[in-house]
Protein backbone atom coordinates (compact mmCIF):
# COMPACT_ATOMS: atom_id res chain seq x y z
CA UNK A 1 0.00 0.00 0.00
CA UNK A 2 2.73 2.45 1.01
CA UNK A 3 4.66 1.44 -2.07
CA UNK A 4 1.65 2.31 -4.21
CA UNK A 5 1.29 5.71 -2.63
CA UNK A 6 4.95 6.40 -3.22
CA UNK A 7 4.61 5.40 -6.86
CA UNK A 8 1.53 7.56 -7.38
CA UNK A 9 3.22 10.50 -5.72
CA UNK A 10 6.26 10.06 -7.96
CA UNK A 11 4.18 9.86 -11.13
CA UNK A 12 2.19 12.87 -10.05
CA UNK A 13 5.38 14.82 -9.37
CA UNK A 14 6.83 13.92 -12.77
CA UNK A 15 3.64 14.95 -14.57
CA UNK A 16 3.44 18.18 -12.58
CA UNK A 17 7.01 19.16 -13.37
CA UNK A 18 6.52 18.21 -17.02
CA UNK A 19 3.58 20.57 -17.40
CA UNK A 20 5.24 23.31 -15.38
CA UNK A 21 8.27 23.20 -17.65
CA UNK A 22 6.09 22.96 -20.76
CA UNK A 23 4.21 26.05 -19.71
CA UNK A 24 7.48 27.83 -19.05
CA UNK A 25 8.70 26.97 -22.53
CA UNK A 26 5.79 28.69 -24.20
CA UNK A 27 5.94 31.77 -22.06
CA UNK A 28 8.14 34.56 -23.32
CA UNK A 29 10.07 35.76 -20.38
CA UNK A 30 10.85 39.25 -21.56
CA UNK A 31 10.15 41.78 -18.91
CA UNK A 32 9.10 45.28 -19.72
CA UNK A 33 8.70 47.81 -16.96
CA UNK A 34 5.35 48.87 -15.64
CA UNK A 35 4.80 51.42 -18.33
CA UNK A 36 2.32 53.84 -16.95
CA UNK A 37 3.28 54.22 -13.34
CA UNK A 38 6.62 55.94 -13.83
CA UNK A 39 6.79 59.64 -13.17
CA UNK A 40 8.54 62.09 -15.39
CA UNK A 41 11.18 64.44 -14.15
CA UNK A 42 10.48 67.68 -15.96
CA UNK A 43 13.68 69.31 -14.88
CA UNK A 44 16.30 67.49 -16.89
CA UNK A 45 18.50 69.60 -19.09
CA UNK A 46 19.18 69.03 -22.78
CA UNK A 47 20.36 70.91 -25.82
CA UNK A 48 18.39 71.67 -28.96
CA UNK A 49 19.33 70.01 -32.22
CA UNK A 50 19.14 73.22 -34.22
CA UNK A 51 20.77 75.54 -31.73
CA UNK A 52 23.23 75.11 -28.93
CA UNK A 53 20.94 76.49 -26.28
CA UNK A 54 20.08 74.46 -23.24
CA UNK A 55 16.53 73.84 -22.15
CA UNK A 56 14.48 71.83 -19.70
CA UNK A 57 11.45 69.69 -20.37
CA UNK A 58 9.42 72.13 -18.29
CA UNK A 59 10.03 74.85 -20.86
CA UNK A 60 9.18 72.57 -23.76
CA UNK A 61 5.78 71.49 -22.48
CA UNK A 62 3.51 74.28 -23.64
CA UNK A 63 -0.11 75.29 -23.17
CA UNK A 64 -1.62 72.68 -25.44
CA UNK A 65 -3.47 69.76 -23.87
CA UNK A 66 -0.99 67.02 -24.63
CA UNK A 67 2.65 66.46 -25.30
CA UNK A 68 4.08 63.53 -27.15
CA UNK A 69 7.72 62.76 -26.51
CA UNK A 70 9.21 60.66 -29.24
CA UNK A 71 12.68 59.19 -28.95
CA UNK A 72 14.27 58.60 -32.32
CA UNK A 73 17.58 58.28 -34.16
CA UNK A 74 18.60 58.42 -37.80
CA UNK A 75 20.27 55.03 -37.51
CA UNK A 76 17.09 53.42 -36.24
CA UNK A 77 15.16 51.73 -39.03
CA UNK A 78 11.84 51.31 -37.21
CA UNK A 79 11.92 55.08 -36.65
CA UNK A 80 11.55 55.50 -40.40
CA UNK A 81 8.46 53.31 -40.37
CA UNK A 82 6.75 55.27 -37.63
CA UNK A 83 7.61 58.68 -39.05
CA UNK A 84 4.45 59.01 -41.18
CA UNK A 85 2.33 58.42 -38.07
CA UNK A 86 4.09 61.23 -36.26
CA UNK A 87 3.62 63.55 -39.21
CA UNK A 88 -0.05 62.65 -39.18
CA UNK A 89 -0.36 63.32 -35.44
CA UNK A 90 1.31 66.67 -35.89
CA UNK A 91 -1.76 67.95 -37.71
CA UNK A 92 -3.75 67.70 -34.48
CA UNK A 93 -3.87 71.07 -32.73
CA UNK A 94 -4.32 69.57 -29.30
CA UNK A 95 -0.77 68.41 -28.93
CA UNK A 96 2.80 69.18 -29.67
CA UNK A 97 5.45 66.61 -30.38
CA UNK A 98 8.89 66.83 -28.87
CA UNK A 99 11.61 64.75 -30.44
CA UNK A 100 14.55 63.40 -28.52
CA UNK A 101 17.38 62.54 -30.84
CA UNK A 102 19.00 59.51 -29.23
CA UNK A 103 22.75 58.86 -29.52
CA UNK A 104 22.95 60.24 -33.00
CA UNK A 105 25.28 62.10 -35.29
CA UNK A 106 24.09 65.67 -35.76
CA UNK A 107 24.52 65.73 -39.55
CA UNK A 108 22.71 62.42 -40.01
CA UNK A 109 19.90 63.54 -37.73
CA UNK A 110 19.36 66.72 -39.71
CA UNK A 111 19.48 64.77 -42.96
CA UNK A 112 16.84 62.38 -41.62
CA UNK A 113 14.50 65.26 -40.80
CA UNK A 114 15.12 66.95 -44.15
CA UNK A 115 14.39 63.74 -46.02
CA UNK A 116 11.28 62.58 -44.16
CA UNK A 117 9.80 65.83 -42.85
CA UNK A 118 9.67 67.32 -39.39
CA UNK A 119 6.76 66.31 -37.17
CA UNK A 120 8.41 67.79 -34.09
CA UNK A 121 7.79 71.23 -32.69
CA UNK A 122 11.13 71.00 -30.95
CA UNK A 123 13.97 68.55 -31.08
CA UNK A 124 16.46 68.04 -28.29
CA UNK A 125 19.55 65.87 -28.44
CA UNK A 126 20.61 63.11 -26.12
CA UNK A 127 24.12 62.15 -27.24
CA UNK A 128 24.93 59.98 -24.25
CA UNK A 129 21.51 58.38 -23.83
CA UNK A 130 21.29 59.55 -20.23
CA UNK A 131 18.25 61.79 -20.69
CA UNK A 132 16.27 58.93 -22.16
CA UNK A 133 17.07 56.76 -19.19
CA UNK A 134 15.99 59.55 -16.87
CA UNK A 135 12.70 59.53 -18.74
CA UNK A 136 12.41 55.83 -18.02
CA UNK A 137 13.00 54.82 -21.62
CA UNK A 138 15.48 52.25 -22.75
CA UNK A 139 15.74 52.31 -26.48
CA UNK A 140 14.54 53.71 -29.76
CA UNK A 141 11.89 54.27 -30.86
CA UNK A 142 9.78 55.04 -27.86
CA UNK A 143 6.73 57.29 -27.62
CA UNK A 144 5.32 58.84 -24.48
CA UNK A 145 1.99 60.63 -24.29
CA UNK A 146 1.78 63.21 -21.53
CA UNK A 147 -1.21 65.08 -20.20
CA UNK A 148 0.05 68.64 -19.85
CA UNK A 149 -2.38 69.70 -17.17
CA UNK A 150 -1.81 66.88 -14.73
CA UNK A 151 1.77 66.33 -15.86
CA UNK A 152 1.29 62.59 -15.94
CA UNK A 153 2.10 59.90 -18.43
CA UNK A 154 -1.03 58.69 -20.15
CA UNK A 155 0.59 56.08 -22.31
CA UNK A 156 3.99 54.81 -23.27
CA UNK A 157 4.82 52.80 -26.35
CA UNK A 158 8.02 50.85 -26.71
CA UNK A 159 8.84 50.17 -30.33
CA UNK A 160 7.55 51.85 -33.47
CA UNK A 161 4.02 53.21 -33.80
CA UNK A 162 1.75 51.20 -36.06
CA UNK A 163 -1.87 51.41 -37.16
CA UNK A 164 -3.16 49.92 -33.94
CA UNK A 165 -1.10 52.12 -31.63
CA UNK A 166 -1.88 55.15 -33.74
CA UNK A 167 -5.61 54.53 -33.44
CA UNK A 168 -5.23 54.05 -29.71
CA UNK A 169 -3.30 57.30 -29.38
CA UNK A 170 -6.04 59.16 -31.24
CA UNK A 171 -8.67 57.59 -29.02
CA UNK A 172 -6.80 58.56 -25.87
CA UNK A 173 -6.46 62.14 -26.99
CA UNK A 174 -10.12 62.30 -27.94
CA UNK A 175 -11.42 60.70 -24.77
CA UNK A 176 -9.40 62.73 -22.34
CA UNK A 177 -11.27 65.88 -23.28
Amino acid at each position, binding site marked *: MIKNIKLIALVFLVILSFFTLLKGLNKT*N*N*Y*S*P*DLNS*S*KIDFNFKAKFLYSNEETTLNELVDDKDFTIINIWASWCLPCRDEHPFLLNLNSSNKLNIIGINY*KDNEINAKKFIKELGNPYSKIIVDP*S*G*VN*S*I*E*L*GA*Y*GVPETILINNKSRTILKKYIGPLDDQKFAELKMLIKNEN
Partner: protein
Amino acid sequence: MKIKILILTIVYLISFFNFSYAANSEKVDKISKNLRCLICQGQSVYDSQSDFALSMKILIKNKIDEGKNDEEIYNFLKIKFGEWIVYDPEIKKNTILLWVLPLFLFVFGAILIIRKVSIK
Protein backbone atom coordinates in the same frame (compact mmCIF):
# COMPACT_ATOMS: atom_id res chain seq x y z
CA MET B 1 66.37 70.07 -5.65
CA LYS B 2 63.56 72.38 -6.65
CA ILE B 3 62.99 70.37 -9.80
CA LYS B 4 62.86 67.17 -7.80
CA ILE B 5 60.17 68.61 -5.53
CA LEU B 6 58.25 69.86 -8.52
CA ILE B 7 58.34 66.46 -10.22
CA LEU B 8 57.32 64.73 -7.01
CA THR B 9 54.40 67.10 -6.57
CA ILE B 10 53.24 66.51 -10.13
CA VAL B 11 53.49 62.73 -9.75
CA TYR B 12 51.62 62.95 -6.49
CA LEU B 13 48.84 65.03 -8.00
CA ILE B 14 48.48 62.74 -11.01
CA SER B 15 48.29 59.64 -8.83
CA PHE B 16 45.85 61.33 -6.50
CA PHE B 17 43.40 62.20 -9.29
CA ASN B 18 43.89 58.80 -10.83
CA PHE B 19 43.05 57.21 -7.54
CA SER B 20 39.87 59.17 -7.02
CA TYR B 21 38.87 58.39 -10.61
CA ALA B 22 39.55 54.69 -10.10
CA ALA B 23 37.54 54.68 -6.88
CA ASN B 24 34.57 56.15 -8.72
CA SER B 25 34.76 53.72 -11.62
CA GLU B 26 34.98 50.86 -9.15
CA LYS B 27 31.76 52.12 -7.63
CA VAL B 28 30.14 52.26 -11.08
CA ASP B 29 31.22 48.65 -11.66
CA LYS B 30 29.80 47.56 -8.33
CA ILE B 31 26.43 49.18 -8.93
CA SER B 32 26.16 48.12 -12.56
CA LYS B 33 26.84 44.49 -11.58
CA ASN B 34 23.68 44.61 -9.48
CA LEU B 35 21.52 45.93 -12.31
CA ARG B 36 19.76 43.91 -14.94
CA CYS B 37 20.11 45.07 -18.53
CA LEU B 38 16.63 45.50 -19.98
CA ILE B 39 17.76 45.10 -23.58
CA CYS B 40 19.74 41.90 -23.35
CA GLN B 41 17.93 40.25 -20.53
CA GLY B 42 20.01 37.78 -18.61
CA GLN B 43 23.05 40.01 -18.62
CA SER B 44 23.93 42.61 -16.08
CA VAL B 45 24.43 46.22 -17.05
CA TYR B 46 28.10 45.70 -16.23
CA ASP B 47 28.50 42.86 -18.73
CA SER B 48 26.34 44.25 -21.48
CA GLN B 49 27.60 46.40 -24.32
CA SER B 50 24.14 47.45 -25.49
CA ASP B 51 23.39 51.15 -25.94
CA PHE B 52 21.11 51.05 -22.94
CA ALA B 53 23.79 49.58 -20.69
CA LEU B 54 26.46 52.00 -21.88
CA SER B 55 24.17 54.96 -21.17
CA MET B 56 23.26 53.48 -17.84
CA LYS B 57 26.92 53.37 -16.83
CA ILE B 58 27.28 57.06 -17.72
CA LEU B 59 24.14 57.83 -15.73
CA ILE B 60 25.46 55.97 -12.69
CA LYS B 61 28.76 57.83 -12.96
CA ASN B 62 26.92 61.16 -13.15
CA LYS B 63 24.86 60.29 -10.12
CA ILE B 64 27.97 59.36 -8.14
CA ASP B 65 29.60 62.62 -9.16
CA GLU B 66 26.49 64.40 -7.90
CA GLY B 67 27.17 62.79 -4.55
CA LYS B 68 24.35 60.24 -4.56
CA ASN B 69 24.97 57.06 -2.61
CA ASP B 70 24.27 53.52 -3.80
CA GLU B 71 20.89 53.31 -2.14
CA GLU B 72 19.68 56.53 -3.76
CA ILE B 73 20.80 55.38 -7.21
CA TYR B 74 19.05 52.02 -6.86
CA ASN B 75 15.89 53.73 -5.67
CA PHE B 76 15.98 56.19 -8.54
CA LEU B 77 16.22 53.35 -11.06
CA LYS B 78 13.56 51.31 -9.30
CA ILE B 79 11.14 54.21 -9.67
CA LYS B 80 11.97 54.55 -13.36
CA PHE B 81 12.12 50.91 -14.39
CA GLY B 82 10.54 48.93 -11.59
CA GLU B 83 11.79 46.45 -9.04
CA TRP B 84 12.91 44.10 -11.79
CA ILE B 85 15.99 46.12 -12.67
CA VAL B 86 17.83 45.16 -9.49
CA TYR B 87 19.17 41.66 -8.99
CA ASP B 88 18.43 41.88 -5.31
CA PRO B 89 14.66 41.96 -4.86
CA GLU B 90 13.14 43.33 -1.69
CA ILE B 91 11.26 41.07 0.66
CA LYS B 92 7.62 41.63 -0.24
CA LYS B 93 4.44 39.64 -0.42
CA ASN B 94 5.16 38.30 -3.88
CA THR B 95 8.87 37.67 -3.32
CA ILE B 96 8.63 36.04 0.10
CA LEU B 97 8.63 32.56 -1.43
CA LEU B 98 11.82 33.39 -3.29
CA TRP B 99 13.56 34.23 -0.05
CA VAL B 100 12.07 31.59 2.21
CA LEU B 101 12.00 28.56 -0.08
CA PRO B 102 15.79 27.99 -0.25
CA LEU B 103 16.01 28.27 3.51
CA PHE B 104 13.14 25.84 3.89
CA LEU B 105 14.74 23.38 1.44
CA PHE B 106 18.04 23.67 3.28
CA VAL B 107 16.47 22.85 6.62
CA PHE B 108 14.43 20.04 5.08
CA GLY B 109 17.57 18.56 3.51
CA ALA B 110 19.45 18.84 6.77
CA ILE B 111 16.68 16.98 8.59
CA LEU B 112 16.76 14.24 5.95
CA ILE B 113 20.51 13.82 6.28
CA ILE B 114 20.45 13.81 10.06
CA ARG B 115 17.71 11.21 10.11
CA LYS B 116 19.58 8.99 7.63
CA VAL B 117 22.76 9.24 9.65
CA SER B 118 21.15 8.64 13.00
CA ILE B 119 19.27 5.56 11.72
CA LYS B 120 22.58 3.97 10.76
